[in-house]
Protein backbone atom coordinates (compact mmCIF):
# COMPACT_ATOMS: atom_id res chain seq x y z
CA UNK A 1 0.00 0.00 0.00
CA UNK A 2 2.73 2.41 1.02
CA UNK A 3 4.70 1.70 -2.11
CA UNK A 4 1.63 2.37 -4.18
CA UNK A 5 1.03 5.69 -2.42
CA UNK A 6 4.67 6.67 -2.90
CA UNK A 7 4.42 5.93 -6.58
CA UNK A 8 1.28 8.08 -6.74
CA UNK A 9 3.25 10.88 -5.16
CA UNK A 10 5.94 10.64 -7.80
CA UNK A 11 3.33 10.61 -10.54
CA UNK A 12 1.70 13.72 -9.10
CA UNK A 13 5.05 15.48 -8.86
CA UNK A 14 5.81 14.60 -12.47
CA UNK A 15 2.48 16.06 -13.53
CA UNK A 16 3.48 19.32 -11.86
CA UNK A 17 6.83 19.33 -13.63
CA UNK A 18 5.20 18.68 -16.98
CA UNK A 19 2.99 21.70 -16.41
CA UNK A 20 6.09 23.79 -15.75
CA UNK A 21 6.90 23.79 -19.44
CA UNK A 22 3.71 25.74 -20.08
CA UNK A 23 4.66 28.34 -17.49
CA UNK A 24 8.11 28.68 -18.94
CA UNK A 25 7.09 28.88 -22.58
CA UNK A 26 3.92 30.85 -22.21
CA UNK A 27 3.30 32.87 -24.21
CA UNK A 28 -0.02 34.22 -22.96
CA UNK A 29 -0.40 35.03 -19.25
CA UNK A 30 -3.59 32.96 -19.22
CA UNK A 31 -1.63 29.83 -20.11
CA UNK A 32 0.93 30.40 -17.38
CA UNK A 33 -1.83 31.11 -14.95
CA UNK A 34 -3.76 27.95 -15.65
CA UNK A 35 -0.65 25.83 -15.40
CA UNK A 36 -0.04 27.37 -12.00
CA UNK A 37 -3.57 26.47 -10.99
CA UNK A 38 -2.84 22.90 -11.95
CA UNK A 39 -0.05 22.90 -9.37
CA UNK A 40 -2.42 24.02 -6.70
CA UNK A 41 -4.62 21.00 -7.33
CA UNK A 42 -1.71 18.57 -7.59
CA UNK A 43 -0.15 19.95 -4.42
CA UNK A 44 -3.40 19.40 -2.54
CA UNK A 45 -3.44 15.81 -3.78
CA UNK A 46 0.18 15.32 -2.73
CA UNK A 47 -0.61 16.63 0.73
CA UNK A 48 -3.57 14.29 1.11
CA UNK A 49 -1.44 11.31 0.15
CA UNK A 50 1.38 12.45 2.42
CA UNK A 51 -0.95 12.82 5.38
CA UNK A 52 -1.84 9.16 4.92
CA UNK A 53 1.76 8.08 4.39
CA UNK A 54 3.33 10.05 7.23
CA UNK A 55 0.43 9.46 9.62
CA UNK A 56 0.00 13.19 10.15
CA UNK A 57 -3.67 14.21 10.14
CA UNK A 58 -2.57 17.84 10.61
CA UNK A 59 -1.58 17.84 6.95
CA UNK A 60 -5.26 17.91 6.02
CA UNK A 61 -5.35 21.46 7.42
CA UNK A 62 -2.38 22.35 5.29
CA UNK A 63 -4.13 20.89 2.25
CA UNK A 64 -7.22 22.96 3.03
CA UNK A 65 -5.16 26.16 3.18
CA UNK A 66 -3.49 25.25 -0.11
CA UNK A 67 -6.86 24.74 -1.77
CA UNK A 68 -8.15 28.02 -0.42
CA UNK A 69 -5.08 29.94 -1.45
CA UNK A 70 -5.34 28.53 -4.94
CA UNK A 71 -8.78 30.12 -5.20
CA UNK A 72 -7.55 33.45 -3.90
CA UNK A 73 -4.48 33.48 -6.14
CA UNK A 74 -6.72 32.79 -9.10
CA UNK A 75 -8.66 35.98 -8.40
CA UNK A 76 -5.39 37.84 -7.94
CA UNK A 77 -3.99 36.55 -11.20
CA UNK A 78 -7.14 37.44 -13.07
CA UNK A 79 -7.36 40.95 -11.70
CA UNK A 80 -3.72 41.91 -11.83
CA UNK A 81 -2.59 40.10 -14.95
CA UNK A 82 -5.47 40.90 -17.24
CA UNK A 83 -4.29 43.02 -20.09
CA UNK A 84 -5.39 46.59 -20.12
CA UNK A 85 -7.90 48.27 -17.91
CA UNK A 86 -11.49 47.53 -18.51
Amino acid sequence: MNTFLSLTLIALLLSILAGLIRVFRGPAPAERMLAAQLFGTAAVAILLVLSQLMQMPALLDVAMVFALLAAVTLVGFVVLASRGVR
Partner: protein
Amino acid sequence: MTDPLVIFDVALALAIVALAVAALSVRDLFAMIVLFVVFGLLSALAWVRLSAPDVALAEAAIGAGVTGALLLKTLHHLRYVSGTLGQQAAYGVTPLTPVPIGVTLANAIFCGLITLGLAVAYLGAPAAGPGFDALVAEAMPRSGVDHPVTGVLLNFRAYDTLMEVVVLLAAVVAVWQIERGVSDAPAPVLGEVWQGFARLALPATVVVGTYLLWVGAEAPGGAFQGGAVLAAVGLLLLLTRAYVPQPTHRGIARGAFVLGTGVFALVALLVASGGRVAFEYPLEHAKTLILLIEGMVTISIAVTLAALFHGREPVAQTKGGRDDT
Protein backbone atom coordinates in the same frame (compact mmCIF):
# COMPACT_ATOMS: atom_id res chain seq x y z
CA MET B 1 15.06 -1.70 -3.73
CA THR B 2 15.22 1.92 -2.71
CA ASP B 3 12.24 3.36 -0.96
CA PRO B 4 10.03 5.17 -3.49
CA LEU B 5 9.68 7.96 -0.94
CA VAL B 6 13.41 8.65 -1.31
CA ILE B 7 12.89 8.97 -5.05
CA PHE B 8 10.08 11.39 -4.33
CA ASP B 9 12.32 13.39 -1.99
CA VAL B 10 15.12 13.59 -4.53
CA ALA B 11 12.72 14.56 -7.31
CA LEU B 12 11.13 17.22 -5.14
CA ALA B 13 14.52 18.64 -4.11
CA LEU B 14 15.65 18.73 -7.75
CA ALA B 15 12.38 20.38 -8.78
CA ILE B 16 12.83 23.06 -6.11
CA VAL B 17 16.35 23.84 -7.26
CA ALA B 18 15.25 23.83 -10.90
CA LEU B 19 12.39 26.20 -10.11
CA ALA B 20 14.74 28.56 -8.28
CA VAL B 21 17.00 28.68 -11.32
CA ALA B 22 14.03 29.03 -13.67
CA ALA B 23 12.47 31.86 -11.66
CA LEU B 24 15.70 33.81 -11.86
CA SER B 25 16.41 33.14 -15.51
CA VAL B 26 13.02 33.37 -17.23
CA ARG B 27 12.74 36.61 -19.18
CA ASP B 28 9.07 37.28 -18.73
CA LEU B 29 8.45 38.86 -15.33
CA PHE B 30 4.94 37.46 -15.04
CA ALA B 31 6.27 33.96 -15.59
CA MET B 32 8.93 34.73 -13.00
CA ILE B 33 6.28 35.44 -10.39
CA VAL B 34 4.25 32.35 -11.29
CA LEU B 35 7.37 30.18 -11.06
CA PHE B 36 8.20 31.77 -7.75
CA VAL B 37 4.77 30.96 -6.31
CA VAL B 38 5.13 27.35 -7.45
CA PHE B 39 8.61 27.31 -5.92
CA GLY B 40 7.09 28.45 -2.63
CA LEU B 41 4.43 25.75 -2.76
CA LEU B 42 7.00 23.04 -3.45
CA SER B 43 9.23 24.29 -0.61
CA ALA B 44 6.20 24.05 1.64
CA LEU B 45 5.76 20.43 0.48
CA ALA B 46 9.41 19.76 1.28
CA TRP B 47 8.90 21.12 4.78
CA VAL B 48 5.90 18.87 5.18
CA ARG B 49 8.20 15.98 4.35
CA LEU B 50 10.51 17.21 7.12
CA SER B 51 7.58 17.03 9.55
CA ALA B 52 7.22 20.80 9.83
CA PRO B 53 3.57 21.44 8.96
CA ASP B 54 3.50 24.79 10.81
CA VAL B 55 6.34 26.12 8.72
CA ALA B 56 4.74 24.71 5.59
CA LEU B 57 1.51 26.54 6.38
CA ALA B 58 3.32 29.81 7.00
CA GLU B 59 5.40 29.48 3.85
CA ALA B 60 2.41 28.61 1.67
CA ALA B 61 0.24 31.40 3.05
CA ILE B 62 2.80 34.17 3.61
CA GLY B 63 5.95 33.19 1.72
CA ALA B 64 4.24 32.09 -1.47
CA GLY B 65 0.73 33.56 -1.29
CA VAL B 66 1.12 37.05 0.13
CA THR B 67 4.58 37.60 -1.34
CA GLY B 68 3.32 36.48 -4.74
CA ALA B 69 0.38 38.86 -4.50
CA LEU B 70 2.72 41.70 -3.54
CA LEU B 71 4.99 40.95 -6.49
CA LEU B 72 2.03 40.76 -8.89
CA LYS B 73 0.65 44.03 -7.64
CA THR B 74 4.02 45.67 -8.10
CA LEU B 75 4.41 44.26 -11.59
CA HIS B 76 0.95 45.55 -12.48
CA HIS B 77 1.89 49.00 -11.19
CA LEU B 78 5.22 49.01 -13.00
CA ARG B 79 3.60 48.01 -16.27
CA TYR B 80 0.99 50.70 -15.80
CA VAL B 81 3.47 53.52 -15.23
CA SER B 82 5.79 52.34 -17.99
CA GLY B 83 2.89 52.07 -20.41
CA THR B 84 3.44 48.40 -21.24
CA LEU B 85 0.18 47.16 -19.78
CA GLY B 86 -1.28 46.49 -23.21
CA GLN B 87 1.59 44.27 -24.32
CA GLN B 88 1.37 40.56 -23.90
CA ALA B 89 4.83 39.87 -22.54
CA ALA B 90 6.26 41.60 -19.50
CA TYR B 91 9.97 42.01 -20.16
CA GLY B 92 12.19 44.36 -18.19
CA VAL B 93 9.79 46.97 -16.94
CA THR B 94 12.41 48.26 -14.56
CA PRO B 95 15.39 49.96 -16.18
CA LEU B 96 18.27 47.73 -17.14
CA THR B 97 21.80 48.92 -16.69
CA PRO B 98 23.91 46.59 -18.81
CA VAL B 99 26.49 44.75 -16.74
CA PRO B 100 29.48 43.24 -18.56
CA ILE B 101 29.10 39.50 -18.91
CA GLY B 102 32.51 39.06 -17.30
CA VAL B 103 31.35 40.67 -14.09
CA THR B 104 28.26 38.48 -13.99
CA LEU B 105 30.34 35.39 -14.64
CA ALA B 106 32.86 36.30 -11.95
CA ASN B 107 30.03 36.88 -9.49
CA ALA B 108 28.43 33.57 -10.39
CA ILE B 109 31.69 31.67 -9.95
CA PHE B 110 32.29 33.44 -6.65
CA CYS B 111 28.82 32.51 -5.39
CA GLY B 112 29.32 28.98 -6.64
CA LEU B 113 32.47 28.66 -4.56
CA ILE B 114 30.67 30.01 -1.50
CA THR B 115 27.84 27.54 -2.03
CA LEU B 116 30.32 24.71 -2.40
CA GLY B 117 31.99 25.76 0.84
CA LEU B 118 28.63 25.87 2.60
CA ALA B 119 27.71 22.45 1.25
CA VAL B 120 30.98 21.01 2.56
CA ALA B 121 30.38 22.67 5.92
CA TYR B 122 26.86 21.28 5.95
CA LEU B 123 28.02 17.76 5.22
CA GLY B 124 30.59 18.09 8.00
CA ALA B 125 27.97 19.13 10.55
CA PRO B 126 26.75 16.52 12.99
CA ALA B 127 23.61 14.93 11.53
CA ALA B 128 20.55 15.40 13.72
CA GLY B 129 22.75 17.10 16.27
CA PRO B 130 21.82 18.42 19.66
CA GLY B 131 18.76 20.61 19.94
CA PHE B 132 16.18 22.07 22.25
CA ASP B 133 14.07 18.88 22.23
CA ALA B 134 14.63 17.89 25.83
CA LEU B 135 14.32 21.43 27.17
CA VAL B 136 11.06 22.03 25.31
CA ALA B 137 9.62 18.69 26.37
CA GLU B 138 10.44 19.50 29.96
CA ALA B 139 9.00 23.03 29.85
CA MET B 140 5.85 22.28 27.85
CA PRO B 141 3.59 21.52 30.85
CA ARG B 142 4.37 24.98 32.20
CA SER B 143 3.70 26.80 28.92
CA GLY B 144 -0.10 26.88 28.95
CA VAL B 145 -0.49 25.41 25.46
CA ASP B 146 -0.26 21.91 24.03
CA HIS B 147 1.39 22.57 20.70
CA PRO B 148 5.18 22.92 21.01
CA VAL B 149 5.64 25.42 18.15
CA THR B 150 2.98 27.71 19.62
CA GLY B 151 4.63 27.28 23.00
CA VAL B 152 7.97 28.40 21.58
CA LEU B 153 6.48 31.30 19.64
CA LEU B 154 4.28 32.72 22.36
CA ASN B 155 5.96 31.69 25.55
CA PHE B 156 9.57 30.49 25.49
CA ARG B 157 10.69 32.92 22.82
CA ALA B 158 7.81 35.38 22.99
CA TYR B 159 10.28 38.26 22.91
CA ASP B 160 11.37 37.27 19.39
CA THR B 161 7.75 37.04 18.33
CA LEU B 162 6.97 40.48 19.74
CA MET B 163 9.87 41.91 17.78
CA GLU B 164 8.65 40.13 14.67
CA VAL B 165 5.32 41.93 15.01
CA VAL B 166 7.32 45.12 15.48
CA VAL B 167 9.05 44.41 12.16
CA LEU B 168 5.63 44.20 10.51
CA LEU B 169 4.66 47.50 12.11
CA ALA B 170 7.89 49.10 10.93
CA ALA B 171 7.18 47.80 7.43
CA VAL B 172 3.73 49.31 7.23
CA VAL B 173 4.94 52.64 8.63
CA ALA B 174 7.76 52.66 6.08
CA VAL B 175 5.43 51.73 3.20
CA TRP B 176 2.98 54.48 4.09
CA GLN B 177 5.91 56.84 4.32
CA ILE B 178 7.39 55.84 0.97
CA GLU B 179 4.30 55.70 -1.24
CA ARG B 180 2.52 58.98 -1.49
CA GLY B 181 -0.30 60.40 -3.46
CA VAL B 182 1.26 59.70 -6.83
CA SER B 183 -0.42 58.04 -9.75
CA ASP B 184 -1.74 54.65 -8.78
CA ALA B 185 -2.51 52.02 -11.35
CA PRO B 186 -6.28 51.69 -11.58
CA ALA B 187 -7.20 48.12 -10.80
CA PRO B 188 -9.31 46.50 -13.47
CA VAL B 189 -12.88 45.65 -12.58
CA LEU B 190 -13.84 41.99 -12.35
CA GLY B 191 -16.46 40.45 -14.55
CA GLU B 192 -19.67 39.15 -13.08
CA VAL B 193 -18.62 35.52 -12.91
CA TRP B 194 -15.48 36.44 -11.05
CA GLN B 195 -17.36 38.64 -8.66
CA GLY B 196 -19.57 35.67 -7.83
CA PHE B 197 -16.57 33.40 -7.42
CA ALA B 198 -14.87 35.84 -5.10
CA ARG B 199 -18.05 36.17 -3.08
CA LEU B 200 -18.02 32.39 -2.63
CA ALA B 201 -14.37 32.29 -1.67
CA LEU B 202 -14.70 35.04 0.92
CA PRO B 203 -16.68 33.31 3.69
CA ALA B 204 -14.66 30.13 3.27
CA THR B 205 -11.48 32.11 3.80
CA VAL B 206 -12.82 33.79 6.92
CA VAL B 207 -13.82 30.44 8.40
CA VAL B 208 -10.48 28.80 7.64
CA GLY B 209 -8.51 31.74 9.00
CA THR B 210 -10.40 31.71 12.28
CA TYR B 211 -10.11 27.95 12.48
CA LEU B 212 -6.35 28.09 12.04
CA LEU B 213 -6.05 30.64 14.83
CA TRP B 214 -8.18 28.53 17.15
CA VAL B 215 -6.49 25.24 16.43
CA GLY B 216 -3.04 26.76 17.02
CA ALA B 217 -3.06 25.90 20.71
CA GLU B 218 -2.93 22.16 20.09
CA ALA B 219 -2.19 21.57 16.42
CA PRO B 220 -0.29 23.26 13.58
CA GLY B 221 -1.68 26.73 12.94
CA GLY B 222 -1.78 29.86 15.02
CA ALA B 223 -1.64 33.60 14.81
CA PHE B 224 0.62 33.93 11.80
CA GLN B 225 -0.99 31.36 9.58
CA GLY B 226 -4.49 32.44 10.61
CA GLY B 227 -3.56 36.08 10.13
CA ALA B 228 -2.20 35.38 6.67
CA VAL B 229 -5.34 33.55 5.60
CA LEU B 230 -7.49 36.37 6.97
CA ALA B 231 -5.25 38.79 5.08
CA ALA B 232 -6.37 36.90 1.98
CA VAL B 233 -9.87 38.10 2.83
CA GLY B 234 -8.55 41.64 2.78
CA LEU B 235 -6.85 40.97 -0.55
CA LEU B 236 -10.10 39.63 -2.00
CA LEU B 237 -12.04 42.65 -0.75
CA LEU B 238 -9.48 45.00 -2.23
CA LEU B 239 -9.25 43.13 -5.51
CA THR B 240 -13.00 42.92 -6.02
CA ARG B 241 -13.38 46.56 -5.00
CA ALA B 242 -15.85 45.44 -2.39
CA TYR B 243 -13.82 47.63 -0.07
CA VAL B 244 -12.09 50.81 -1.18
CA PRO B 245 -9.88 52.37 1.50
CA GLN B 246 -11.04 55.86 2.40
CA PRO B 247 -8.98 58.61 4.02
CA THR B 248 -11.36 58.59 6.96
CA HIS B 249 -10.41 54.98 7.69
CA ARG B 250 -6.82 55.92 8.38
CA GLY B 251 -7.32 56.23 12.11
CA ILE B 252 -8.92 52.79 12.38
CA ALA B 253 -6.20 51.30 10.22
CA ARG B 254 -3.46 52.80 12.41
CA GLY B 255 -5.23 51.38 15.43
CA ALA B 256 -5.41 47.93 13.86
CA PHE B 257 -1.73 48.00 12.88
CA VAL B 258 -0.56 48.70 16.42
CA LEU B 259 -3.17 46.58 18.19
CA GLY B 260 -1.15 43.36 18.19
CA THR B 261 2.14 44.98 19.15
CA GLY B 262 0.52 47.11 21.82
CA VAL B 263 -1.44 44.34 23.51
CA PHE B 264 1.47 41.92 23.29
CA ALA B 265 3.91 44.39 24.83
CA LEU B 266 1.45 45.51 27.50
CA VAL B 267 0.68 41.95 28.59
CA ALA B 268 4.40 41.15 28.65
CA LEU B 269 5.02 44.15 30.89
CA LEU B 270 2.04 43.76 33.17
CA VAL B 271 2.68 40.14 34.09
CA ALA B 272 5.97 41.23 35.68
CA SER B 273 4.80 41.36 39.26
CA GLY B 274 5.10 39.22 42.34
CA GLY B 275 8.64 38.12 41.60
CA ARG B 276 7.98 37.38 37.96
CA VAL B 277 9.84 39.01 35.08
CA ALA B 278 8.48 40.34 31.82
CA PHE B 279 6.89 37.68 29.54
CA GLU B 280 6.49 35.29 32.47
CA TYR B 281 2.80 34.47 32.35
CA PRO B 282 1.29 33.08 35.55
CA LEU B 283 0.53 29.44 34.79
CA GLU B 284 -3.17 29.56 35.66
CA HIS B 285 -3.76 32.43 33.21
CA ALA B 286 -1.20 31.44 30.60
CA LYS B 287 -3.65 29.92 28.15
CA THR B 288 -6.05 32.88 28.35
CA LEU B 289 -3.28 35.41 27.97
CA ILE B 290 -1.72 33.56 25.04
CA LEU B 291 -5.09 33.33 23.31
CA LEU B 292 -5.68 37.03 23.90
CA ILE B 293 -2.29 37.91 22.45
CA GLU B 294 -2.79 35.54 19.53
CA GLY B 295 -6.19 36.98 18.73
CA MET B 296 -4.98 40.57 18.73
CA VAL B 297 -1.83 39.70 16.81
CA THR B 298 -3.92 37.86 14.22
CA ILE B 299 -6.07 40.95 13.63
CA SER B 300 -2.96 43.09 13.30
CA ILE B 301 -1.25 40.68 10.94
CA ALA B 302 -4.30 40.36 8.73
CA VAL B 303 -4.85 44.11 8.47
CA THR B 304 -1.16 44.87 8.11
CA LEU B 305 -0.59 42.34 5.34
CA ALA B 306 -3.65 43.62 3.48
CA ALA B 307 -2.38 47.19 3.92
CA LEU B 308 1.05 46.20 2.66
CA PHE B 309 -0.67 44.78 -0.40
CA HIS B 310 -2.70 47.92 -0.94
CA GLY B 311 0.44 49.98 -0.58
CA ARG B 312 0.01 53.67 -0.07
CA GLU B 313 -1.90 55.34 2.69
CA PRO B 314 -5.45 56.12 1.56
CA VAL B 315 -5.57 59.78 0.60
CA ALA B 316 -8.29 62.02 -0.68
CA GLN B 317 -8.53 61.98 -4.48
CA THR B 318 -7.36 65.44 -5.40
CA LYS B 319 -6.79 65.90 -9.08
CA GLY B 320 -3.33 67.14 -9.95
CA GLY B 321 -2.57 67.97 -6.38
CA ARG B 322 0.35 66.15 -4.88
CA ASP B 323 0.80 66.25 -1.18
CA ASP B 324 4.50 66.48 -0.82
CA THR B 325 7.15 66.83 1.84
